[in-house]
């Protein structure tokens, strides 16, 4: 029998690169790439058809690289299939290995599988379907009961998704999809979380979809979403004995570091604005004004507590059904480094993310469906969400006083809007009007 490691290492880097560039989860620009190659291989199943877990390197012309996980199988003719997950029959294998708590040693590392017992056992012949690929991962639904998320780009250390799900489960927070299992790589090259298995929440609606298609119905549940969010933060801040989650008092520089970072982001975003884009006309040349405004908002002390948080919180990360709201995707913003994503911050940053999402939903009704959002919809969604949020969140986590809370919230909303501006101009210029409107609103707001 052929050694899959040897086969993999013989892979033509150009062909592999061409294939990877076509994947949605592959982030980098083609022009920057110099080389693709297979680094470490662990054979998950040695009898035909073979299945291997491979660490693949994508090198850039500046000399840095990224690592990706590939699950490599074999076609009927014996040739390599770069993505065994595309073969739905194969996809259940990973979940089965979790169920047996398998531990597979390869020459360069070990892949270990874990099962929490929080989900029912797999059926004898599991049904599998793919539910699409995200920026950084691929998700597969098994038996309509479990969702397997396979991380593509690998970073050293504990993936926040796994950390957060474990912590929230252990501390009794129920508005998540329970963690059923995970698998990870431990080798000389790195230690990394490879994927997580969660309960699949069937019969629930996507929060974003609900807000856009039935805005009135959404308003009826916005306060509840705020309460769930507040409870999420209270639970995340509830364990002072867990080093990774213990709430921290912001240091003297906390606000200064935050504001300086946002200030640089504003500068960079405005530096990149081009005057031939009509959509940015309302903010063109107003970068300095915005930076002044930020500086005025930051004349206060940080206050409150810094805690672990969702990190990429918006309506698309929520589901709503008979059992209430479920919060998903604790991975953090995939474009950021792991230390950035794991950093403790004010919980108001999550709240601001959700408020920005309401602005998006209001605009999307127009952009996608060609109908105006109901009058005052966004304001009412904000009000209901925040009311629910403040009723449930542990008060000590907040800065002292309403004015301080409002300012910090506004700073985070600005940070998010600046991030959105750059993202939309690069990816969906039609949507750039949404962050532009947020920035104009802030600029034209009379200072209280």
């Amino acid at each position, binding site marked *: 029998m052929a050694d899959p490691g040897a086969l993999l290492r013989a892979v033509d880097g150009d062909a592999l690169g061409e294939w990877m560039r076509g994947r949605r989860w592959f982030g980098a620009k083609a022009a920057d790439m110099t080389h693709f190659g297979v680094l470490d291989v662990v054979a998950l199943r040695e009898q035909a058809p073979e299945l291997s877990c491979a660490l693949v390197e994508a090198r850039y012309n500046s000399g840095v690289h990224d690592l990706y996980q590939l699950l490599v199988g074999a076609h009927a003719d014996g040739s390599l299939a770069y993505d065994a997950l595309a073969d739905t029959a194969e996809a259940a294998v990973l979940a089965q290995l979790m169920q047996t708590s398998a531990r597979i040693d390869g020459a360069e590392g070990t892949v270990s599988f874990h099962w929490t017992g929080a989900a029912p056992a797999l059926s004898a012949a599991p049904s599998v379907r793919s539910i699409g690929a995200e920026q950084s991962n691929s998700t597969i639904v098994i038996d309509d009961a479990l969702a397997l998320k396979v991380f593509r780009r690998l970073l050293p250390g504990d993936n926040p998704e796994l950390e957060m799900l474990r912590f929230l489960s252990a501390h009794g927070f129920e508005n998540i999809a329970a963690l059923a299992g995970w698998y990870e790589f431990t080798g000389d*090259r*790195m230690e990394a979380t490879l994927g997580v298995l969660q309960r699949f929440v069937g019969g629930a609606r996507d929060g974003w979809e609900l807000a856009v298609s039935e805005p009135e119905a959404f308003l009826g549940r916005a306060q509840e979403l705020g309460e769930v969010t507040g409870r999420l933060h209270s639970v995340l801040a509830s364990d002072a004995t*867990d*080093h990774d989650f213990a709430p921290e008092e912001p240091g003297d*520089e906390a606000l200064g570091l935050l504001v300086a970072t946002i200030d640089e982001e504003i500068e960079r975003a405005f530096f990149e604005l081009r005057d031939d884009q009509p959509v940015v006309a309302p903010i063109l040349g107003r970068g300095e004004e915005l930076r002044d405004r930020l500086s005025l908002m930051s004349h206060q002390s940080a206050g409150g507590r810094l805690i672990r948080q969702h990190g990429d919180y918006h309506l698309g990360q929520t589901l709503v059904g008979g059992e209430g709201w479920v919060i998903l995707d604790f991975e953090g913003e995939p474009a950021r480094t*792991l230390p950035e994503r794991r*950093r403790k911050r004010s919980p108001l940053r999550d709240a601001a993310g959700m408020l920005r999402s309401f602005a998006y939903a209001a605009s999307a009704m127009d952009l996608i469906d060609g109908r105006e959002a109901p009058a005052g919809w966004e304001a009412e969604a904000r009000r209901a969400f925040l009311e629910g949020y403040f009723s449930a969140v542990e008060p000590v986590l907040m800065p002292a006083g309403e004015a301080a809370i409002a300012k910090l919230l506004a700073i985070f909303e600005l940070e998010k809007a600046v991030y959105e501006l750059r993202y939309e101009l690069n990816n969906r210029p039609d949507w750039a009007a949404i962050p532009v409107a947020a920035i104009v609103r802030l600029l034209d707001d009379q200072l209280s």
Partner: protein
Amino acid sequence: MTGIAPSPRSASPSHWFESDPLWFKKALFYEIHLRGFYDGNADGSGDFRGLTEKLDYLQWLGVDCIWLLPMYASPLRDGGYDIADYAAIHADYGTMDDVRAFLEAAHQRGMRVIADLVMNHTSSDHLWFQESRKGGEDNPYADWYVWSDTDERYRDARIIFTDTEVSNWSWDPVRQAYYWHRFFGHQPDLNYDCAAVHEAMLDALRFWLDLGLDGFRLDAVPYLYERENTNCENLEETHEFLRKVRKTVDTEYPDRVLLAEANQWPEDVVAYFGDGDECHMAFHFPVMPRMFMGMRREDATPIYEILDRTPAIPDNCQWGLFLRNHDELTLEMVTDEERDYMYSEYANDPRMKINVGIRRRLAPLLDNGRDDIELMHAILFSLPGSPVLYYGDEIAMGDNIFLGDRDGVRTPMQWTPDRNGGFSRADFAQLYAPPLMDPVYGYQAVNVEAQLRTPTSLLRWMRRFIFLRKEHPVFGMGTYEPLRGTNHRVFAHIRRWEDDIALCVHNLARSAQAVELDLSEFEKRYPEEMFGRTRFPQIGEWPYLLTLAPRGFFWFLLKQGDEARG
């Protein structure tokens, strides 16, 4: 931090880093005087808990590796370089649990940590010396230090601390014998001819590497052995021992680093890299005084010359480069004439001199000139090596020449304009040293808080510059190709790594300058300025003309026509 940390799990760096045996070649180092950084328990002295609280700041700044000055148990007669116990820290700095929590917190933020380690000598308070001085046939420690009945041996070895020491030998009334010390009399040299000393030192290294430390800056390595009729520096036996240390570290602790302090000429220092089997890094001492000289003379020649004189080093090795550090600006590795020049230009008050050097910080040396400070960092960051910043220099802190020894450049970090500069909540009188309070460099004028708020501050500029350099491994990994143009006031060179080609051009003059550079090798490429990403005119076959502002500089990527931004 309010969270009471439980004893953290293993602080092993391997959990949070991708394995990379060459990580140190791409790293920015930041040197910290623990006592002076931040006081976490309001006793007037900086400590590990305080440093842990400031990790977010260091992460924001872009630091890859923290270098700690010695934090070991010590009577502190030489700033902690007099170690009294290798397996303990000084009580002022906290507990071993604090150290573990700090290492874990640094690793989680993507930062590594190395610490000073002195292998050459211990404090005379060390148990080993106290046992050794008892002498006696059965005494296992009897040979651990260099004892002699006469002070006539090794006469060719120079005296290093010329201000305080008259001989390398001191009389011990207990053992009734002389003991050897290359530094202060209270720092007896260990005897590396004794095999037990080798094992004891390797165990000291293992103790800290097990704890999660990412490596060591090895203090004063050239002096481990003594041999008659030599200057007792850089002896072959010393290299042999370093190879043994390296082998132990490579085998038992992958991805750790050994950084040698050998204040020697480059051609001698390269010996400490061995064939890539001794130290991973060594400081390049002589380049730094020549940068200061170049600034004063408005002439790039001294910089070109010292780099021309620097031999190639193995691929798995790296120079450590710095502008200033915790010691004096050392002038041992310059000619007498150059030293006189440096003293007259940079130390007009005799108090500024110490031993063979100048005890001042970066900003005062450069008369607090912002353009000068930026230019010096630009040159530093452009040279082949890993830059080492000294705490406080990123906000242009000053010094206090009225404090003794080198304490004048080790004053408390200036965090805020509040009491004690935000360094400590203790009473002023309790502080280990007074913070600077003069109108120019004092904490009310110079502090982190104010500079964070000011987009044009040195601190904010420094961070942007650090991140720019980080995006391009060429500066850590690439070639160095000097490019002598038509103007001796301009220091220009090329760095190359993989597909990145960087052109760095620095004007050392106080006046605007023009320079013509032969870039014909890069014909048809476009220089793209790295800060603003502005495309400059295409390179042709004729010399390329650049004009530079006073003390100005340009960094370019030389891009193919189709990859440059239009």
